[in-house]
């Protein structure tokens, strides 16, 4: 076996020490009738060069330019992020339950929590969730704990990412909470809050996403001050540029900060809220403390909320979370700094407007009048074949919405980032040349 550390010499010594002639003798407790017969029919072993050759043969091509975002965004990852996050001391270490041997990871979580709080404008944050969609589901479960006597209903904007909504509905169906969606205004693309204050305040939670799935920045003006509002952000760069959402719990994705898309997983979900609700939070929390010599030290804290202590009474069942992705986001943010991410945010927004204008010159239409950040919904009915024509040139003109939403037949969701920025004119010209 390739990764064995036991040389044939050692193997013999060990069996001898155990006084058995083979490993079979150590399996006595497993009833014969359940023992597996024959070999596992699993291909291999493949030596390394052959395995890599096989993998390259499997690789199909990648797009030259992709405008697909829709919750996962292609941004540039600076070289120090990979170099630093790749150190084995980060990669091959465990959850920091033994703080004396994990101060590196613990300081990182503390920094991550700080960055999440700073960017969401909240008081505190936890050490990360699996991703944005499960972070949202956990946020509503948290709302149930915070607001014990509430109506068993959560009002959700139709601007929420459809896969987030579906995930939320799955979780809710097992805790008896009804999920009711709020319509979008067709013109602005903003959520219509049709509910009076009393209804809002009585609900378990109210969920908005901003920028919403269709790219529109919500204003949430008519969301009640006293409602348990939850704000979702999937494009974290929006946090660097726009006012923090006026919500009680902020959740979403930090994937945009130095984390490759990887088909959507793993990423780094975040959750932030007010300090007084800290004991209701799911997930890991790292706090600052002292060691026996009175020196600054860090450790996991309030673990009494967690499954390994509280078991069925825990605030969540989450255990292994997304440490390494939190590390990447933390290093990314430290390297870029506020000015760095604000510059990228500005360039993303400008870039989206550059292409929006360009497309409109071609007769295509930006669907919603509400302001957008770096993503917008485009109506391409003026040039029905365009998406496919571009595809032949390995340019993906965003996400077609037709199969996902009724009444959006010729609409495409277009995301622009700094990766489209420097060559923006050339890319646009190539598109124009195909119209």
């Amino acid at each position: 076996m390739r990764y064995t550390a036991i040389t044939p010499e050692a193997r013999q010594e060990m069996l001898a020490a155990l006084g058995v002639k083979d490993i079979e003798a150590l399996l006595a407790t497993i009833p014969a009738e359940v023992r597996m017969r024959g070999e596992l029919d699993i291909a291999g072993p493949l030596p390394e060069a052959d395995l890599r050759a096989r993998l390259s043969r499997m690789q199909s091509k990648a797009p030259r330019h992709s405008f697909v975002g829709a919750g996962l965004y292609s941004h540039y990852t600076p070289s120090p992020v990979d170099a630093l996050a790749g150190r084995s001391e980060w990669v091959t270490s465990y959850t920091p339950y033994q703080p004396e041997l994990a101060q590196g990871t613990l300081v990182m979580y503390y920094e991550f929590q700080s960055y999440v709080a700073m960017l969401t404008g909240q008081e505190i944050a936890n050490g990360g969730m699996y991703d944005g969609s499960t972070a949202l589901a956990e946020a509503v479960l948290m709302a149930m704990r915070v607001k014990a006597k509430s109506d068993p209903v959560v009002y959700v904007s139709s601007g929420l990412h459809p896969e987030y909504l579906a995930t939320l509905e799955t979780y809710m169906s097992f805790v008896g909470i009804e999920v009711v969606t709020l319509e979008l205004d067709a013109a602005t693309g903003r959520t219509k809050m049709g509910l009076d204050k009393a209804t809002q305040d009585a609900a378990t939670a109210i969920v908005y996403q901003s920028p919403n799935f269709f790219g529109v920045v919500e204003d949430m003006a008519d969301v009640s001050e006293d409602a348990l509002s939850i704000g979702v952000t999937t494009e974290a760069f929006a946090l660097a540029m726009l006012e923090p959402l006026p919500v009680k719990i902020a959740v979403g994705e930090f994937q945009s900060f130095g984390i490759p898309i990887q088909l959507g997983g793993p990423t780094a979900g975040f959750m932030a809220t007010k300090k007084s609700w800290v004991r209701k939070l799911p997930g890991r929390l790292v706090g600052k403390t002292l060691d026996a010599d009175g020196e600054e030290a860090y450790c996991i804290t309030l673990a009494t909320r967690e499954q390994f202590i509280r078991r069925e009474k825990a605030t969540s069942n989450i255990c292994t979370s997304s440490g390494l992705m939190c590390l990447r986001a933390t290093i990314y943010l430290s390297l870029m700094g506020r000015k760095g991410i604000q510059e990228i945010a500005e360039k993303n927004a400008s870039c989206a407007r550059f292409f929006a204008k360009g497309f409109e010159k071609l007769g295509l239409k930006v669907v919603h009048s509400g302001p957008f950040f770096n993503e917008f919904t485009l109506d391409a009915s003026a040039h029905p074949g365009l998406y496919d024509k571009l595809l032949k040139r390995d340019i993906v003109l965003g996400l077609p919405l037709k199969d996902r939403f009724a009444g959006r037949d010729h609409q495409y969701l277009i995301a622009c980032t700094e990766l489209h920025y420097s060559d923006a004119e050339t890319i646009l010209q190539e598109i124009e040349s195909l119209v």
Partner: protein
Amino acid sequence: MSKPTIKEKTVFDLVGQEHPGFAVVGDNAAVDACRAEDLPRRQDNCQGMGQVTEVDVVRHYTRLSTFNFDIDRGMYPLGSCTMKHNPKLNEAVAAESYWANAHPYWPEPYLDGHHHIIDELRQDLIEASGFDQVCMTPAAGAHGELTATFMIRAYHHAKGNDHKKIILTPDTAHGTNPASAAMAGFKAKQIPSGPGGTLRFEDLEPFLDDKVAGIMVTNPNTLGIYETDFKRIADAIHALDGLVYMDGANFNAVMGIFKPGDIGADVMHWNLHKTFTTPHGGGGPGSGPIGYNNNLAPFAPDSGDDRSIGPIKAYLGQWGMFIRAWCYIRSLGGQGLKEVTEEAILNGNYLRKGLEGKLHLPFPTATLHETVFTDKDLPNHISTKDIAKRLIDYGFHPPTTYFPILVQGALMIEPTETEPKHEIDRFIAAMDSILKEAEENPEIVKTAPHTASVSRVDETLAARNLDLRWQAPETT
């Protein structure tokens, strides 16, 4: 490791406000002309967030990393957590642009390679487990448990059996089992293990009634012992139309030896980050696919059936872990995976042998890949915690401590198959020396560690004076 002569604070202690920060792209006047004048800008300075120079960032995270212990430097005998060697090959492949930067919403054929890998991995998991189908989506083991408990509820609901509200778990179960059951709306009931450390049929019987929706059993269990009554228990649960969940965290003691699908399990999760060497990364990411039989298939997240529980996470699952697990499985093949199990068991027993008669063994039963000892009758009130912390000074990560909870002062030790004999021998020698110190020089053990980047950390204080984030001077 030893006390660093360099004390490293947080990155915020290095922050400047005037330095420009990292530049990714230069200016493009044509694009900048389209500035977003229609958007209001954030008025605060992100609560005082500033900029650090690239040099300081490199130093900061390099130094911090050296305060961690990692598998690449030594044995990490965390029972149940399976800290085994993480192949460099997997990291190199997963980082390749084609594999790492694919978007799930791209049209075919850009994703052909990815789907090919996922399909092969699914087939391999099915072959290794004997289940009918596999769902790849869950983000980690606990998430797999949650998916499964959701499916179990949907199963009973579909049959009109909403009164089946009880999920049984042995007292050796991992905390995520009852926690997952609870999140699915079940009531978790705990069954005491027998004197042999296993779940005996007779101990289960009193709990068997029509309200039982199912049982969750780790096998081999968290004591490293094979659950000999598993099949009989499964039959009894099935007789009540209950379902059997097998926690697959210890699958590195299963591969090639038996198939959970053959012993009566209906559904199970894998931790790709345990059995299949994807890195733990200081607390994730993981990946927790589940295998299940056809009776549960309609309820799976991706069944397409209207009885499906629906998605449990956005997108397709932890692709970054799939590609690593695929590389590992292909590098070994079926025969290699069986050898993994055999050597995990060989190492587990060799280590147990080396400590037997020195540390108290709560259960005499033969163990497979891991063993639980306790701090019972250690001299001078030396505790499990003391031993764990003192091991640090000998260059080892502590074992899992105080779990399973039913065992007073548990020390749960799993070397895994990737520990060489000389390292296990060094571990046993370290233990011998610590036990000697416990007699002759207990103080040094009680005040350990003495060579880590910090001395013993005050966890109570952390909970008392909550400090969960940095505060900019101006914002405090």
